[in-house]
């Protein structure tokens, strides 16, 4: 296995770690990059008991059947992406092992397992005005009555695709963006947050 320190995230060129002291302490918007997450795109028929139970036992995760929702167990998440498609998010470095275990368990079945963690990066967006930043580029109804913790959605942020996930009601959002768009998405977010005062935070 490759040495993990050799990895370079999609936003490495922005040197965000060196900028974490920037911004007001009581900022109403906080931004952070969470690179290097293990992610597996999983496809299969949820009605197929063999598929479902194999995933549950190997990944330790239940797959959500409700559109635009995610389930979290033991630090792993399963996000609904489509009626036969999920995104499993787990710790960096665990992705290949889990993918291989799933492939073994689902051998001969109608399923698809693809590692995609390197193809995306995750940006955390939190704070009292995080919702206002997000709605500048997202046409979903983000009002607490319509979108809350436990929900996720594939949609657009300005001109880029994203998988949006709400983690808590502070609110904290995670924006899962495609790697090649990461520079655009980050700079768009930082620019959008400017009028509220924005802080870059460390994990």
């Amino acid at each position, binding site marked *: *296995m*490759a*040495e993990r320190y*050799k*990895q*370079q*995230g*999609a936003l*490495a*060129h922005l040197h965000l770690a060196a900028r974490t002291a920037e911004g007001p302490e009581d900022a109403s918007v906080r931004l952070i990059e969470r*690179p*290097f997450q293990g992610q597996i*795109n999983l*496809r299969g028929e949820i009605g197929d008991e063999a598929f479902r139970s194999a995933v549950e036992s190997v990944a330790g995760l239940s797959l959500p059947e409700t559109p635009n929702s995610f389930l979290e167990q033991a630090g792993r998440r399963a996000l609904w992406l489509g009626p*036969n498609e999920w995104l499993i998010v787990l710790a960096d470095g665990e992705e290949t092992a889990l993918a291989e275990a799933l492939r073994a368990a689902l051998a001969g079945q*109608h*399923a*698809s*397992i*693809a*590692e*995609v*963690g*390197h*193809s*995306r990066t995750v940006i955390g967006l939190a704070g009292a005005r995080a919702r*206002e930043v997000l*709605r*500048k*580029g*997202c*046409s*979903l*109804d983000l*009002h607490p*009555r*319509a979108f809350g913790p436990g929900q996720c959605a594939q949609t657009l942020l*300005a*001109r*880029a695709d994203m998988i949006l996930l709400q983690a808590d009601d502070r609110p904290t959002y995670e924006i899962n963006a*495609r*790697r*090649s*768009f*990461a*520079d*655009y*998405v980050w*700079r*768009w977010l930082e*620019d*959008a947050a*400017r*009028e509220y*005062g924005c802080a870059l935070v460390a994990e």
Partner: protein
Amino acid sequence: MTRQQFRLAEGGRIDRDRPLSFRFNGRAYQGYAGDTLASALLANGVHLVGRSFKYHRPRGIFSAGAEEPNAIIQLETGTRSQPDLRATQVELYEGLRAKSVNCWPSVRFDLAAINSRLAPLFPAGFYYKTFMWPGRAWHLYEAVIRRMAGLGVAPTGPDPDRYEKTHIHADVLVAGGGPAGLAAALAAARAGARVILADEQSAFGGQLLGNGESVDGKPGAEWAAAAAAELVDLPDATLLPRTTVIGYFDDNYLTLCERVTDHLGPAAPPELPRQRLWKVRARHVVLATGAHERPLVFQGNDRPGVMLASAAQSYVNRYAVRPGRRAVLCANNDSAYRAALDLQEAGVEIAAIADLRPAPDGAGVEAARAQGIEVLPGQAVVATQGGRHLTGVEIAPLSEDGNALAGPSSTEKCDLLCVSGAWNPAVHLFSQSRGKLRYDEGLACFVPGRSVQAERSAGACNGRFALADCLAEGHAAGTAAAAAAGHGDDSGPVPKAEAEPVGAIRAVPCVPSRSGRANKHFLDLQNDVTAADVALAAREGYRSVEHTKRYTTLGMGTDQGKTSNVTGLSVLAAALGRPVPEVGTTTFRPPYTPVTFGTIAGRDVGDLADPARMTPMHHWHVQVGAVFEDVGQWKRPYCYPRQGESKREAVDRECLAVRNAVGILDASTLGKIDIQGPDARKLLNMVYTNAWNKLEVGRCRYGLMLGEDGMIFDDGVTSRLAEDRYLMTTTTGNAARVLEWLEEWLQTEWPDWRVYCTSVTEQFATMTICGPKARDLLAELVDGLDLDPAAFPFMSWRAAAVAGVPARIFKISFTGENSYEINVPANYGMAVWSAIMNAGEKYGITPFGTEAMHVLRAEKGFIMVGQETDGTITPHDLGMDWAVSKTKDFLGKRSLARADTTRAGRKQLVGLLTEAADAVLPEGGQIVSELARKPPMDMIGHVTSSYYSAALGRSIALALIKGGRDRGGETVHVPLLDGSSIAATVTEPRFYDSEGERLRG
């Protein structure tokens, strides 16, 4: 600095403790916080604010709001300058500078005013009749016309301000914050709905801010402030002052323009946007947009000093400004009487009220009479006097049918003439929502008819002009809207106002003049369209209001005819002798009032205008000075010029390095699709033209994809990763399209096929090393992988660690050299790239860009989708029948047997070698077999790719030529724009290593 001689000592919603200095047309004035530019000018006795569009007649402030046709100004100078704003809507700030538009050299002395004397020469359709012939000379006329007839000037520098756009959802959007809108918003918000209330003014209250009426026993403005305060305290109500609802689109999608800091001028905090565009999706919409007072059409009705009665009332009540010393009113309805009383109370002498109605009565009329105001029933102003300002009016009785004067006229001295031709509901948004308008004979205006969307109109915009009715209707609309959005009906009490019956009006489309002419009866004050122009258009055969509008330019100014459309329509209907509803109404298009481009663009400007997609090695390319080109949204290195090297020299050097040593290309942008499932092979067989049954695990194959029309739309190499798993590559630009194509067929046509597709384009950093030294270089970086061609043959792939990182290595070639395409997980891309560069140094490794790649593949005659194909090219056209299966079905196969795809004379791929070895043909150049002295010539094809080939020491080109494969050896010509031409010989489309020995390594 002049004193504010027309300012009242007290009253108004202005702050006398905050005087503000400003300049208009170079002169210094003072106003107060709370003023608009228009009210501050009037306070200083300035009425003359502009010149009309065509005749350059002097024009004064006419209204107090969005409908203003005359007071169109240019605000500020330099990059923050804004053209064509309405002085009636510009809030005053310290240091404001504005000037009139459309007058030169100055508003008081306008050289072009001679046009007014020549008015008979400028009839309707003047431009069409005069300047369109001869067409060739238009460029001569245009410059003159643009200078004479132009309005404001757009700034030329980049806009220094920020603009924002935002989405928001609401249960109930209320457009307009007058009495009806406030009542609606209160009712809906109290019932628990998420409410947005938007109003274009700085404060909520609408007409209540200017007309002195009371609600729930309180002065109207006070009630409005209390209502707004209650809404602010409700958790789910959003109040947007200074926000105009500008557009109403499908599915209750509305756009709002909020002027966030315009009113602060240079004092605006830099972190705030100047304006914000709100994109609202509302479950229900309440339109409470009010009404615009309608002017009356009579001779000389455009003189400065002529003003809408409600505007004059607003100026005294809201801004504490007397718009004149001695006023005459001319009205056909009751509302003007309240204005007269308020003006009188403010110290304006009321000379008379000419009321078109033969027997006006009602509370307002009686109150005016009780105050000693002379009411002249059945009379109208029939002419005005004065130059740059009104000095007097002629008043005369009207005949019973309103078409003639019924007696001698009298003259009244006055400096203010208030006109009121009753009210036009502001149905703009209703009409934009595709709602059907209905003509109300009694009110002589259009009112909302049948709704199409989840929307209701309330108050004056619904033809309900009495305050009590507005409040009741607003409350009911808000309650119903909240209920429709799933909330209760606990909407609180209905706000009350004194019920005052509204008397009937008398509609006279055009007040006759003594001369019988109507060429100074202005309908459209901004575009100088008169009743005579419309009558002429009718005589010339125009029947449709839409055509008449374009012919006369009625309602086509920056005000979009807010004060002129209905009066113009009435005149047209009268001229045609048809009822108004039969003549129709013009279409109301967004935006309701003009919006600056910055607001529409928002932050989608500069480098946020479009995403720039970057590969994992992008910043390395930047650091070594690569020149980039856009491929779709991707940034790809075009070439890597060294110090002092031209791009052409860099490309030549990069090409030779690949042919003679080793080059490295960042190919991460290629589309990659992971295809898994027992039916994966079946899918490949259907979407590719060739057969996939015999491809073994570990092997790769090139394939062409066709649309069902038989035309090539993509190509690429697909590799078999495992028994039921393939990795498909696509061209950079088509990655998303190909995945969607596969999904489309799987989901819509073959839903029972057991195969899934997943995009993994960005999971991998892809770097291609190629050239005679590529194998030696790779050998240094991999462990335990036999690179001998016998063990690792061309068109196969192997898994191995490259520089310690797990990789897939594909031995495929697009350059004709021995070539390895290395895929590693993207976050390791830079580490592996660096390792290759370090190890490659002794081999002379040279990074090469897209242009060298294009040259190298063209030398080999490899096609490039989008270059050799354009959606009309079949595999046969390109001589690629070898890639097309004769036995199996595939998408597009049947089309290859259609008469059109099999006919002789289709364009076919050939090579071209120019007679002069260093002449590079222009790509896209048209090809002829015989040169003529000048066009037209018979074009037989076009150049698709053309380069200088350093390896061959000459230029090469690929082309599509009719029947090209039978023209080998023929000489053809490519005529150039400068009249010269380049001669070339038709060859095979392959120039280098045609046996393909080099790429097998």
